[in-house]
């Protein structure tokens, strides 16, 4: 069963509907116990890093997510859910992330519109099971003001250009993270969720 973590930070229902429309069973999980019973886990979310970590810590979900990932089960972070995997964010100095991946979360700078909202291209750097059958240069739907800067370039699978070339898909062993919203990115987005569900 695929679990979707509910911690009150949005896009939960779109993600759930996307999996259901593909014919996969999902369960919304709210407690550490429920979470650890899943075979795959999705951490969605939009919004503020600090607030999200505060809720995850308070509900003891941080520890459970780390434990889940340690057990080698497939994990997918979407948007804020990707960012939370890293050590820290310039958005909330003083509140650490899940620290599952090394690196930090930065805010876009310069003469560009923030948040980055809209359809943008991915530039493939490294093949990955999650990206199976996804055409090169596909467009996906983005909505974010911050991006991840992994310490280890090797985990970056795709880059996207928005003033900077930022990591839009990362993968490290059983951990996958995507900055765009697959649940809002037409059939290519659904294909990514399907690939994850079939891992």
């Amino acid at each position, binding site marked *: 069963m695929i679990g979707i973590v509910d911690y009150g930070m949005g896009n939960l229902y*779109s993600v759930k509907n996307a999996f259901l*429309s593909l014919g996969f069973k999902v369960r919304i999980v709210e407690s550490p116990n429920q979470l650890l019973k899943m075979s795959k886990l999705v951490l969605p979310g939009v*919004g503020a890093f600090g607030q999200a970590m505060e809720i995850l810590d308070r509900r003891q979900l941080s520890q459970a997510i780390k434990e889940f990932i340690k057990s080698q089960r497939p994990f997918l972070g979407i948007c804020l859910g990707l960012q939370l995997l890293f050590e820290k964010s310039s958005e909330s100095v003083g509140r650490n992330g899940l620290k599952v991946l090394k690196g930090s979360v930065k805010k876009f700078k310069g003469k560009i519109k*923030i*948040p980055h*909202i809209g*359809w943008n291209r991915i530039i493939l750097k490294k093949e990955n099971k999650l990206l199976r059958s996804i055409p090169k240069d596909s*467009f996906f739907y983005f909505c974010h003001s911050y991006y991840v800067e992994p310490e280890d370039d090797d985990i970056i699978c795709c880059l996207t250009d928005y003033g900077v070339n930022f990591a839009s898909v990362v993968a490290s062993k059983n951990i996958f993270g995507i900055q765009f919203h697959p649940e809002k990115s037409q059939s290519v*987005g659904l294909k990514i969720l399907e690939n994850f569900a079939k891992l």
Partner: protein
Amino acid sequence: MLVIPAIDISGGKVVRLTAGSFRKIKEYSSNPIYVAKFWCQQGAKYLHIVDLDGAAIGKPINLEVIKEILKAISIPVEVGGGIRTISDINSYLEMGVDRVILGTSVVKDLSFLDKEQIKPIADKLSVSWDVRIDGKKSEDIAVIGTEGWLKEVSVSTLALLEKMTSVRVGYLNYTNRSKDGTLLGLTDEDFNYLNLLLDLLRDKPIHLIYGGGVSGLEDISKIAKLKNKKIFGIVIGKALYENKFSLSEAQKIADVS
């Protein structure tokens, strides 16, 4: 620039009004979910959904239908019509709506945007600016339709844009309501006002979504040729429903910009 199909819902059905008049209503489908899926199959990258009954009555009426649409498709959607309270906004956002369009609640009282609860969701909001160009009083004062365009209010464009900038609401759905649903095409007068608005937006972190009167590919081409990055998309209703052109033809022309 995206071409955004419009799905206007009244009585659970997909309809188009002419210049906002509920007396000139035309039904296109009794199944909004089918219509939404159809536009997705045609390659739509964004949808514009309006709860017309909600707009007229002042609270969400076709919310359940819209919820079913969201379940059935996987592209971003903006929704407007009758969304007047924070709790209405949040119900739509929780459902997975990408952007909530506020009209009456904001144009009748700009301080609506000052509410504390707006801050965390400001980038998920748009203000609808439903202008009657022929009623224009000055460059700044625009005559805006409210309550499903059954009423009007005169508002300062700059006051709105300043307010939106200060609270970080980044989208303006400008509808040319004398033209909406008329298939009349865009005239110089329409472009004069559009250019005026774009000019006001130039140094503001606000993007524009245009709607109203698009009847042929040449209208899209003219807007695309402005090459203005401030235009996020064009909402098209009747012209698509009446097969004046296909969505993919329209998008191809819009992509030039």
